[in-house]
């Protein structure tokens, strides 16, 4: 479909221009910091000297992308319907601790145990997202503010649970609070064999390349299928594009809000699992926070589409990975956040500009094919 292709090409061109501009802007910052931008950009691609360092770096990069991708998906499901689920942050933390705790209370064959943990996480995330959804549907409470409040509540609830009811045994002299250790059967098998295919050594870093990556890919596909091919996805799209029209077409907006929010929360519930099932084996006070907020940026950068989100998550993870490398190169590592922020801003600006251009082109095409641009000559 040439029209679609045109639009896609324009979008890619816009994104490339935005990234080039972001690089230019951050170069200025790096120069201002008294460092050499070339060193800095070399650092982004410098994964280390030894093969071991390289595979570890690659694994760290991909492992970082996995939760970011899931977070992006979670946010995007809501955004597609103009529902701003700012509460992904709270949903995933609460889900992670509950799943980690439930998973630690029993042992079962790996597939069953992992499945239970995943289901618990999704259920808790979904249920927690149900609260703002119900508040919005029954009382018209703005979901942005409700989820912001619920984030604070979830974060405190989590820290209460990890110290109190869900606390596990700690080693002598350990100050990190944690849930009970998961059994080995709960740990997600890693994907280190992929490195064998390329004749590389296995990454040695904790957990190697997280197997959850596969699940994330499957999840991405599933979200794509659901959003783009099913009736439910159509209803989501319709509600997002024009909610009065969706309502008139028989879509029940209340049901849709609840469904989309719960789906979003359910996906959000999985954000913490790669880390827990791939590496930590428990929820503890070092558990990575803030992925929900980063997910917003990732989703927006990826234009709320699974493929775009994957690209955005990889980009963010790629930049994040260089945290250490930049410091080795004596470049302030905070330049990463600047690049991320600038890219988000510029890419959406570029999106806007290219979208307008694409619309213009399409209208032009439509008008030309209809021959509307030839005014008639009529004698008065």
């Amino acid at each position, binding site marked *: *479909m040439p*029209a*679609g292709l045109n639009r896609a090409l324009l979008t890619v061109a816009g994104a490339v221009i935005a990234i080039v501009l972001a690089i230019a802007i951050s170069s200025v910052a790096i120069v201002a910091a008294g460092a050499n931008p070339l060193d800095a950009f070399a650092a982004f691609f410098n994964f280390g000297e030894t093969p071991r360092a390289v595979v570890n770096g690659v694994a760290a990069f991909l492992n970082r992308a996995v939760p970011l991708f899931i977070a992006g998906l979670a946010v995007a499901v809501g955004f597609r319907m103009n529902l701003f689920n700012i509460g992904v942050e709270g949903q995933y933390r609460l889900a992670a601790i509950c799943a980690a705790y439930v998973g630690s209370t029993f042992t079962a064959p790996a597939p069953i145990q992992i499945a239970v943990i995943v289901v618990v996480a999704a259920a808790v995330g979904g249920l927690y997202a149900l609260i703002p959804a119900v508040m919005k549907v029954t009382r018209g409470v703005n979901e942005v503010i409700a989820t912001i409040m619920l984030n604070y509540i979830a974060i405190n609830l989590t820290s209460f649970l990890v110290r109190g009811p869900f606390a596990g045994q700690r080693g002598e002299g350990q100050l990190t609070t944690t849930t009970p250790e998961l059994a080995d059967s709960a740990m997600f098998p890693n994907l280190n064999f992929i490195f064998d295919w390329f004749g590389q050594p296995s990454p040695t870093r904790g957990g190697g390349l997280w197997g959850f990556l596969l699940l994330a890919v499957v999840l991405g596909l599933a979200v794509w299928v659901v959003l783009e*091919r*099913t*009736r*439910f*996805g*159509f*209803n989501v*799209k*319709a509600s997002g*594009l*024009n909610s*009065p*029209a*969706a*309502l*008139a*077409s*028989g*879509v*029940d907006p209340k049901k849709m809000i609840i469904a989309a929010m719960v789906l979003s929360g359910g996906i959000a519930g999985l954000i913490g699992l790669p880390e827990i099932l791939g590496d930590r084996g428990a929820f503890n006070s070092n558990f990575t926070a803030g992925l929900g907020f980063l997910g917003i940026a990732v989703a927006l950068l990826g234009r709320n589409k699974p493929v775009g989100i994957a690209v955005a998550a990889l980009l963010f993870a790629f930049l994040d990975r260089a945290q250490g490398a930049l410091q080795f190169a004596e470049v302030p590592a905070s330049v990463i956040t600047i690049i991320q922020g600038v890219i988000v801003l510029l890419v959406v600006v570029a999106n806007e500009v290219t979208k307008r251009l694409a*619309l*213009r*082109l*399409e*209208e*032009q*095409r*439509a*008008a*030309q*094919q*209809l021959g*509307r*641009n*030839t*005014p*008639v*000559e*009529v*004698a*008065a």
Partner: protein
Amino acid sequence: MSADTLATAKPAVELEGITKRFPGVVANHDIRITVEPGTVHAIVGENGAGKSTLMKILYGMQKPDEGTIKVNGTEVGFRTPSDAIAVGIGMVHQHFMLADNLTVLENIVLGAEPKKGGRLDTAAARKRITELAESHGLRVDPDKLVEDLGVGDRQRVEILKVLYRGARILILDEPTAVLVPQEVEELFQNLRELKAEGLTVIFISHKLDEVLDIADAITVIRRGTTVASLARNEVTSARQLAELMVGSELPTPETRESTVTDRVALKVAHLTMEADGYHPVPKGTSIEDYVGKLRAEGKRLLLDDVSFEIHEGEILGIAGVEGNGQSELIEAIMGIRAAHGGVALGEQDISTWSTLKRRESGIGYIPEDRHRQGLLLEASLWENRVLGHQTRKPARNGIWVDRRAAKADTERIVKDYDVRTPSVDTLALALSGGNQQKLIVGREMSGAPKFLIAAHPTRGVDVGAQAAIWDHLRNARAAGLAVLLISADLDELIGLSDTIQVIYRGRLVAALDPSDITPERLGGYMTGAIAGTEET
């Protein structure tokens, strides 16, 4: 005639060779119009002919690509509306330009605020507005919120806005589209007064009899170009004007013989809707009693005990001034808004059903505002075909959307309904309004509905498309479709309907026979000027 005595004065507005291109469209092409001061100058033309664009150019909202504008003899180059306002031009737009949550006063003074020591001088503004309102017979309460006003009042606020700025040249873009004949007459009275004060009025309307009634001169635009400039006395009939506009014979909405059967397709009983939100009827109370109680308490009712039946093969027209409950009525029938009372489709009581179930059981819906309720502008045509048919063949395949079948069926609609589009993958927003409307009509007719709500089915649609849509409605009616027709176009209403009901303040106040009713008499019922129920 005043126009004659002022003929030597400089023209109020001179448009010379105005050309305006939009991507892919030439909206205006070498337009030449001369407007004499102290006259009402009408501009007529088909939908999309370029009238609004031209006026926006004159008002500084858009820049012409070519051509010159002279106001009172001096050439001007407007960059923003404020430049136009500065030389005394004011414009009432085709669609209301009002901020609902601001008061009438705030809406009027916005942009030209009287100030006193940094403060907004509301006292001075109120005084000025009251004066203007009195001297022009435009009564409004300056402290009311605009959202509480009806359309007539809003129209008055729009005109006051222009007068408040001291405009000497008024542009009125289809000001009568939402008014009933009586209100139109009131407006014309005001215009004549303004004209007598020496103001110049540029007036746009699709209602040619109105044009003939008020205008001193008429310019006809076709496809962006001026095709004729005539003085009023050069025009002999509306038909002559219309033929200039389209260059072809005019269709009329004339229903031929009756196809009404005795099988009830839709029955509405005691439909009632409160203004302050839906409250359930207490148990053990009948709806009639409940409504009586509400009336006794002086509660405002959007729908007040509305009952009617539509038979298979019948078109029931609902006449009424906008804002008298038409929107609420159709939304209640569609299940979009909660209301008391019963709705039955055939034998089935559907009053507790969801919108979806109602649609599935055979109700079609052409909404009054296609952009708001009818289309996903940023989605392709075939996706718009799916809208409202998500759960039915051919769009549905289990839990999936059947893309191939949906596209194929969209091709059918495009062919059958003459939707002018490059392909079914084109985004809906790239289509002109008329083509969008044809797509909607085609969509709602598919799946053989038993009952169709057609709200303003030809609004903003050009004559050719209008005739096509009327034909489709008539054919479906002949095949046994029941139609609830709501239209502001009284000719359309009278021409198509088998029965006409008049809705006034949420009540059905008259049932009329379209064969012996004139638009004027209909207008009388619609405005409450003629009271009582007339049985046919």
